[in-house]
């Protein structure tokens, strides 16, 4: 079992709901301080978003943040260099689009992530059927491959995706790109479909924008992922202390 899964299963065994904030790496020069602030406020793991020019799964907030980070010269190498100063207080999980790793080289990418204490990876445009080479590369470096289940995923696919996923299963709460939360979502049904076939921790993401939503999603699942709402705070000029306050609000809602 890969390190990420050991840690996240242990976390669930303690009875604590996982809080996983998402950051766009390189969005500000001091972005690593934001990660530290989130950990201080009670994050259990963090997603490190590696910016890509064409984020097909992301809404306007993360699109804008990714563009700003790229204009500042952010690369996989620069992100890993920035993270060297951080140590690894909680598990870190990369989230990006497949072309970044495809271009860098799959084994080289997985090795680079692991050397920077990033022990999991979410690649939303890498469907299960295309993921064999990437999974093999990650196996060699103890990087967990996390897969998503969507509200549209059929039951037979849920079983195969949950079987292939490592660390946790990412349950998409709604049929939308990141940041949209115009409806109540379908997280309850999606989580139930995963739990019917898997005992992996299951976290809910996509459109979790308020502590209240996080509380409700946490009651259904093992944890929540908070992305666009936090990235928007930082895009709008929020500093490390406002990140800490924001994440703290979600922490209190989950506990």
């Amino acid at each position, binding site marked *: 079992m890969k390190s990420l899964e050991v840690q996240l299963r242990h976390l669930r065994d303690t009875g604590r709901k996982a809080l996983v904030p998402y950051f766009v790496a390189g969005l500000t020069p001091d972005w690593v301080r934001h990660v530290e602030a989130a950990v201080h406020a009670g994050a259990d793991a963090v997603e490190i978003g590696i910016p890509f*020019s064409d984020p*097909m799964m992301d809404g306007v907030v993360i699109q804008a943040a990714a563009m700003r980070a790229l204009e500042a010269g952010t690369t996989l190498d620069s992100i890993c260099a920035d993270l060297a100063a951080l140590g690894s207080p909680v598990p870190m999980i990369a989230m990006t689009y497949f072309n970044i790793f495809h271009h860098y080289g799959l084994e080289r990418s997985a090795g680079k992530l692991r050397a920077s204490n990033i022990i999991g990876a979410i690649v939303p*445009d890498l469907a299960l059927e295309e993921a064999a080479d990437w999974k093999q590369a990650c196996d060699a470096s103890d990087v967990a491959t996390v897969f998503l289940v969507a509200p*549209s*995923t059929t039951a037979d696919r849920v079983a195969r995706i949950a079987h292939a996923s490592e660390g946790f299963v990412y349950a998409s709460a709604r049929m939308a790109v990141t940041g949209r939360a115009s409806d109540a979502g379908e997280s309850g049904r999606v989580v139930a479909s995963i739990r019917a076939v898997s005992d992996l921790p299951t976290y809910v993401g996509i459109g979790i924008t308020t502590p209240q939503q996080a509380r409700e999603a946490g009651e259904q699942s093992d944890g929540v992922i908070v992305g666009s709402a936090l990235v928007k705070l930082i895009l709008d000029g929020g500093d490390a202390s406002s990140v800490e306050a924001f994440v703290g609000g979600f922490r209190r809602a989950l506990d």
Partner: protein
Amino acid sequence: MTDPPQFMSAPDERGRFGHFGGRFVPEALIPACLELETAFVDAWSDPSFLAEYHKVLREFAGRPTPVTPLERLSERLGIRLFAKREDLAHTGSHKINNVIGQTLLTKRMGKHRVIAETGAGQHGVATATAAARLGLECTVYMGEVDTVRQALNVFRMELLGATVVPVTSGSRTLKDAVNEAMREWVTCVADTHYCLGSVMGPHPFPWMVREMQSIIGHEASRQLEDLGVGTPDVVVACVGGGSNAAGVFAGFANTTSRLVGIEAAGGSAVGKGSPGVLHGMRSLLIQDEFGQIEEAYSISAGLDYPGIGPEHAYLAESGRAEYFAIGDQDVIPALQLLSELEGIIPALETAHAVAWIAREAGTTIPRGSTVLLNLSGRGDKDVAQVRAILNGES
């Protein structure tokens, strides 16, 4: 003894042409891609569906389009040049072939709405047209830059009852319109079909769109036989994503014809690209050293795309087809050449192919060769832009 390779047959079960193609989309869209694949395979082998498709192409779209001998230009260039006249198809380009197939398929799948991306506007206009004919709702995503360059096409789509959404993300051109259409598709996939306009995207789109465009090549092959020309020495088409080229190549892929695709120099995925993954496919892409997709630049909005369809990447790699680039500076003279000698104003996209033929005639196209040009679209949409360029205004 093994059979010679058959080009432009079906991809493998994963949607691969060699190691290009595939299905790189978010999980939320996978069920829709699977549904579409099943529906397409079923429809494309159903004689009643094919009969309807061909009936609409004949009665509504004006097929078959003629093959025209370009006599004065042939004389000028010392070759025997023929044009497959997709400019004469309804809405002014080959794009109508694909959208008639896909909108009929939309109905067959029980969906009532289509979304589409467009660059120059030709695919958007064609989609809006086919949607109006079948009573489907239609929303078209178009880069904000292109809505300005092709303002009349925006108005055309609106006249046809479509909603045009300007896309303000990224480079605000075709690649961003594709991103936005994909993002929108996630939210409405249950009742909406994404009517993709080129031989790109996730499986089965590259294959399905090529099949729906292959009528170009199959008609042209018969027409050249009827003209006594037989198999042409060279078949030439412009390439953005590559749908008109795929359509005409399909009629000649397993003949001795030399197949040539012409990219815009600023969007030359074969010439300047490397393997990568974008918009659901593994193909050749123009990207920087970190795998960030670069913006394409071209005088023609329809060729302003940093990738190419995966089957073209395969045809290039295997050597079956060749791809060359033409720079902006050679495009207007080619448009003038065809206009003045043949009375046909081609689209700026098509003019790239004309420019290459004019340049190569007598060298890599030996004197006396028979050449088929796929005249993919008419230039009406570009007239204002061409006037501005010739007046030194842009």
